[in-house]
């Protein structure tokens, strides 16, 4: 297979507070940004997709209705892409549609009932494809690949696996802090090189 179909340009890891904790380039192809631009990019994807069928409008209020500290979570691009999800009005005569959408307000459902509304997952441009994967704890992995690259999910799963093994199991790694684990760099680099 030609190498362009398997190209991985770079990987970015964002902690759940929207901070950039890891950034590596594996193949040239994309312009490299200034540190500040990388931080801006990380902030763009700040935002948390509730794993359950939670109404996105409720995310910023706690049970008492008091806004939680992360009110600004709703204002990142990632969160806005979720909030502009088209809402389909429900017909009164179709109770079948209301049940799978859980506690969404009565009156509308999402296009894919049963699937929680998420923020941006894949972004495609003429030159690259960006895949955004969020772990259950809110850490985000942004993977930049060639638009023709197949099986991005497999790559993402492997990266997550390596992250769990070499970062999370490292006793010296402090949560939410920049990832400086040599073993992670080495294994991830070797695995990605082995693929191409």
């Amino acid at each position: 297979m030609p190498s362009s179909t398997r190209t991985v340009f770079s990987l970015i890891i964002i902690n759940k507070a929207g901070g950039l904790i890891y950034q590596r380039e594996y193949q040239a192809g994309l312009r490299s940004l200034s540190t500040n631009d990388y931080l801006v990019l990380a902030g763009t994807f700040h935002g948390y997709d509730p794993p359950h069928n939670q109404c996105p409008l409720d995310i910023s209020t706690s049970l008492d209705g008091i806004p939680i500290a992360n009110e600004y979570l709703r204002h990142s691009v990632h969160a806005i892409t979720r909030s502009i999800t088209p809402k389909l009005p429900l017909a009164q005569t179709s109770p079948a549609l209301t049940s799978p959408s859980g506690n969404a307000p009565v009156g509308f459902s999402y296009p894919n009932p049963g699937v929680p509304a998420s923020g941006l997952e894949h972004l495609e441009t003429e030159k690259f494809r960006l895949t955004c994967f969020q772990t259950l704890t809110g850490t985000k992995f942004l993977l930049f690949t060639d638009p023709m690259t197949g099986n991005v999910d497999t790559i993402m799963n492997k990266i997550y696996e390596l992250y769990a093994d070499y970062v999370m199991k490292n006793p010296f790694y402090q949560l939410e802090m920049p990832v400086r684990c040599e073993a992670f760099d080495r294994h991830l680099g070797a695995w990605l090189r082995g693929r191409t």
Partner: protein
Amino acid sequence: MTVYSFYIFDRHAECIYKRRWLPRPASIVGKSRSTENAAQSGQAGTGQTMRATDDDSKLVFGTVFSLRNMVRKLGGDEDNFVSFNTSQYKLHYYETPTNTKFVMLTDTKSPSMRIALQQIYINLYVEYVVKNPLSPAEHPGGVGVNNELFEESLEQFVQTRVLS
């Protein structure tokens, strides 16, 4: 394939046209399809619905604007943002050389609508709006594209896309 909505933004970030299509409620599928459809779209076109979606268009613009800038920074000036999808919908984007932006929201399974948006621009927008001597070149204050021919042909275009 389902089309949820369609927006046009001019180069001053003003939303000059927006249109939402409400899908048929599940209960009436099969019977009186065309009449219901017409009633639905008529409802979507009224002023009240339009106002309720006003904030939507601003959010859509903000999103595509930030993403486009990010894409330009990463991919170089000649790179173009094509589409993104979430678990619920897919957003397609097309920008003309004069910075008019065409945005369409469809369901996640739809193929790339880049060509379709380009066709809307070339065959409908340029023909009916740009070449219309009575239509203003700029749209301050948000009157927007108010053109029966354009709306009708857009409606027709989307209908044929949905059915195919």
